[in-house]
């Protein structure tokens, strides 16, 4: 059973349609990333689930019951804000214990649970500090402890890591995942960072302009993007478009690409996406293996980044990107004509 279910939810702020018919199920105990560019409605969706605002249309269920009429105070959700939103007039322990105090949990139990929560986030011993005496990473842990100590039905995190520097962010990602596994709490995590979404979550939902573009496990989303936007927002992709001719996508001049699956039968034209690491740069006029897709291009630049090499290729006035592992083989130099080859199964038809 889904811990949280959102069906057909829309929300409008004046002229802005922040959410437009979004339906999503969040599995029990799962770690779900909501990914999308800034302004696509991620925060709005989180606030609707938490109950700060009511949707204009659609329903929200938590733990199998509809919560439309339940105000945020009684939804029992854990929310962590981008700004952390710690209570500046209280100590760390009082911050963490606030939710328990509001629930009239007696003092001995409250102290025990606050202690456990602080242990969980590795902050034991700092209970008497004030928020302003903590570092950014520590504040973040306090905010997390405060949100989970009340044993909420779902944990909502709004870009919790975006205010941290890169190194701290990576270590907090690991921490967050560990804590989430230990507590086993259903978590919805908002981010605009695709790498973070890929590495942290069991499932990802991609939002764009208030609509859900695609939803699924990270690997499936990466390998089988449904739209050109999903392909380029989650990872990088080379896009090719052309008229459909006998199940192949014609690129003109007799060249044609064989897609992984049959393109939309009714459509006259189709778009396919190819991940840069799936392509290989070979010498000009190399005969590709049977059935492989290929095209001829000219090297514009190659960028060495340690473990891999990025080729920027000029092709018909546009540019292509190819990632290659550095295996010590000969490297094509700028200006050289090359042939790029890849398997048909890596040629994914997408909605334009």
């Amino acid at each position, binding site marked *: 059973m889904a811990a949280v279910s959102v069906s057909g939810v829309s929300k409008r702020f004046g002229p802005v349609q922040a959410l437009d018919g979004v339906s999503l199920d969040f599995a029990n105990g799962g770690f779900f990333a909501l990914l999308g560019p800034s302004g696509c409605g991620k925060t709005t969706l989180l606030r609707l689930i*938490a109950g*700060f605002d009511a949707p204009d249309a659609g329903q929200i269920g938590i733990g199998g019951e509809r919560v439309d009429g339940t105000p*945020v*105070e*009684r*939804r*029992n*959700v*854990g*929310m962590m*804000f*981008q*700004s952390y*939103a*710690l*209570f*500046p*007039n*209280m100590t760390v322990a009082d911050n963490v214990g*606030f*939710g328990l105090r*509001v*629930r009239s949990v007696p003092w001995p139990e409250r102290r025990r649970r606050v202690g456990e929560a602080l242990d969980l986030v590795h902050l034991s011993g700092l209970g008497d500090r004030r928020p302003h005496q903590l570092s950014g990473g520590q504040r973040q842990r306090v*905010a997390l402890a*405060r*949100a989970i100590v*009340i044993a909420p039905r779902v944990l909502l995190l709004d870009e919790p890591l975006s205010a941290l520097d890169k190194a701290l962010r990576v270590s907090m990602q690991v921490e967050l995942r560990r804590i989430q596994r230990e507590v086993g709490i259903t978590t919805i995590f908002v981010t605009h960072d695709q790498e973070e979404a890929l590495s942290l979550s069991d499932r990802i939902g991609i939002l764009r302009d208030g609509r859900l573009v695609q939803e699924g496990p990270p690997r499936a989303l990466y390998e089988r993007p449904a739209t050109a936007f999903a392909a380029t927002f989650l990872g990088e992709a080379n896009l090719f478009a052309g008229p459909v001719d006998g199940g192949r996508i014609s690129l003109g001049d007799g060249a044609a690409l064989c897609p992984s699956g049959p393109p939309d039968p009714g459509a006259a034209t189709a778009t396919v996406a190819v991940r840069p690491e799936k392509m290989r740069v070979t010498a000009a006029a190399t005969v590709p293996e049977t059935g492989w897709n290929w095209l001829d291009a000219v090297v514009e630049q190659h960028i060495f980044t340690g473990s891999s090499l990025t080729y920027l290729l000029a092709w018909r006035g546009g540019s292509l990107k190819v990632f290659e592992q550095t295996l010590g083989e000969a490297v094509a130099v700028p200006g050289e004509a090359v042939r790029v080859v890849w398997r048909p199964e890596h040629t994914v038809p997408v909605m334009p």
Partner: protein
Amino acid sequence: MAAQSAGGGGRPTVRTLATLLGPAYVWLLLTIFLPLSAMLYFSFLSDVPVGAREAELTLENYAAFFERDFYRSLMLRSFQLGAVVTGLCLLIGFPCAYILAKSIKGRAREALFLLVILPFWTNALVRVFSWTMVLRGNGVLERAVNAVFPEVGPLGLMFTYPAIVVGLVHSYLPYMILTCYVSLQAIDDDVIDAARALGAGWGTILRRLVLPLAAPGMIAGAVLIFVPVIGSFMEPRILGGTQGTFIGTVIEDQFTAVFNWPLGAALSFLMLGFVLALFALAAPAFRRLDG
């Protein structure tokens, strides 16, 4: 620490400090310390030292306060007035500031702000006299009320204690709204949302978060209002008539009418002393509120 790290290392020298701070201290000395010292000196004299009058040092002026019930009860009455006006300003000003800071956005907020500070731009005397137009018998208020409820009859508000309170609250309310606004504005909306998500109702949020976080503003507003109100003389005199005798009006009389500067000065210093004593007593509570 801050001073050490400032500039290209090393402490600012005594000379630069003196050059930078000197003018400010000279100004303080000239405008506050010297007149105040002169007044303190006056308060120990037996008479105003002008012309051929003989003045000698005495404690009589201070003794007068402790010997005569009249001054003591007036002092108490003034402190009570200060407490009532400050309390009313808090009761009215805090909700206004809250609405301004948290509920109203954009142009409407600017317009309302203008209305709040508008009284500052009018002359205080004009403000008080316009209240007499409103409050006096057959004045604006009485006519308006009687137009709706003819059976009410005369209100008899003019020259009463409530009239003084109304005038003073009107004059000093902007201070409270502005100081509370500043401290409420500094409270992050997410902090309040976080408390709601943790299950807190509005009562808890007000008691445990908003009031403690806004306390510095409320205290600043209270101090800004309380001190001038207990020394006020214009509003009591104009709106209070015979009811308008307070320590402030008595002090003013000593300087302008009775020409007994020493007594006026002594009463002023006693008032200052009581105010400082009151703040000293309240300091621990203030500190706790401040968090």
